[in-house]
């Protein structure tokens, strides 16, 4: 993880209890949605593709005491290469890197 000069001392305007009061139910709802999504995928016919493989890998970034989890998830879903590609294959992005280019 690169060190950044822009990074100031992180602040929070609220106590942990206040943050939990404000955001816990919303986060709980999203967590259950993710669990149900994985159940749905696993119930379905067919094979995993790069998107769900990337998704499972990204979940590893959420677990444990690592800091900057949102940033870690975004990095793990990103194209890690650095050279421009020869030609745009289309216009859209799908949210995970297919792993070639």
């Amino acid at each position, binding site marked *: 993880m690169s060190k950044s000069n*822009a*990074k100031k001392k992180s602040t929070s305007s609220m106590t942990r209890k206040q943050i939990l009061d404000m955001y816990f139910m919303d986060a709980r709802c999203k967590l259950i949605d993710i669990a149900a999504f994985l159940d749905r995928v696993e119930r379905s016919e067919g094979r995993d593709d790069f998107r769900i493989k990337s998704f499972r890998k990204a979940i590893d970034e959420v677990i444990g005491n690592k800091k900057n989890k949102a940033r870690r998830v975004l990095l793990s879903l990103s*194209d890690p290469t650095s050279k421009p590609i020869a030609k745009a294959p289309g216009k859209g*992005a*799908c949210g995970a890197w297919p792993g070639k280019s």
Partner: protein
Amino acid sequence: MRYIEPHAHMVSRTTDDYQAMLTAGCAAVCEPAFWAGFDRGTPEAFYNYFLQLTEYEPARAAKFGLPHYTWLCINPKEAEDPILAREVISFIPDFIDKPNVLGIGEIGLNKNSRNELKVLEWHIELAAELDQLILVHTPHLEDKLKGTKLILDALKAHPKIKPDRVIIDHVEEHTVDIVLDRGFWAGMTLYPESKCTPARAIDILENYGTEKIWMNSACDWGISVPLAVPRTALEAKARGYNRRWIDKVIFQNPVNFMKQCKKFKKPDA
């Protein structure tokens, strides 16, 4: 509450949206040229779009008493065709002195291809030549990190481009630091599904401070929320931030960036 919507595609929105934005305290709206959801495809279509952005839309906004500003370019989604891009760029100077044009934008990359990069460099050259501000679109999702780095390198490579006069839009947690570290302004886009949610945008402000950063709804023809900025301000208020803190992010910061263009008038709000 007063706020500036620094990035909205009002040609895709209704008069109800204008009224709702004004009701929520919007004091000015700024509209970068963008992709229509389909390819415009011809220089003539772009010419007409620039007329819409510089004549029709500001007149429509004025009916609601809302100052309307714009940015001109050929968007990165249509930059895979350099011949078309060349021609569109050739008539941008015809529009650049219109009273509501703030600069060149939203230029950038989409799939990070060689042609997109070439067209980006042409736009950067044009902005330098005409001494214009720049508003940059960074790519979506998995392409954002790489695209942001390529864009920053292209901007830094031009000797006449001053980072203070460039805003890099659609930053997220994995790109905000490289943008601010290199002296550019950063924009956070508040979208329901991609880019930033209100909660994450406030987190980013807590982690990186409130200097040289703004928020926008980037509302367009897709799933987007024209009132995303004032709603995020309400969420910041619920998190204990006072009026001054909120006003800096949603009003003063956009004013401070855009007033670098003499045509931008600080709204009397």
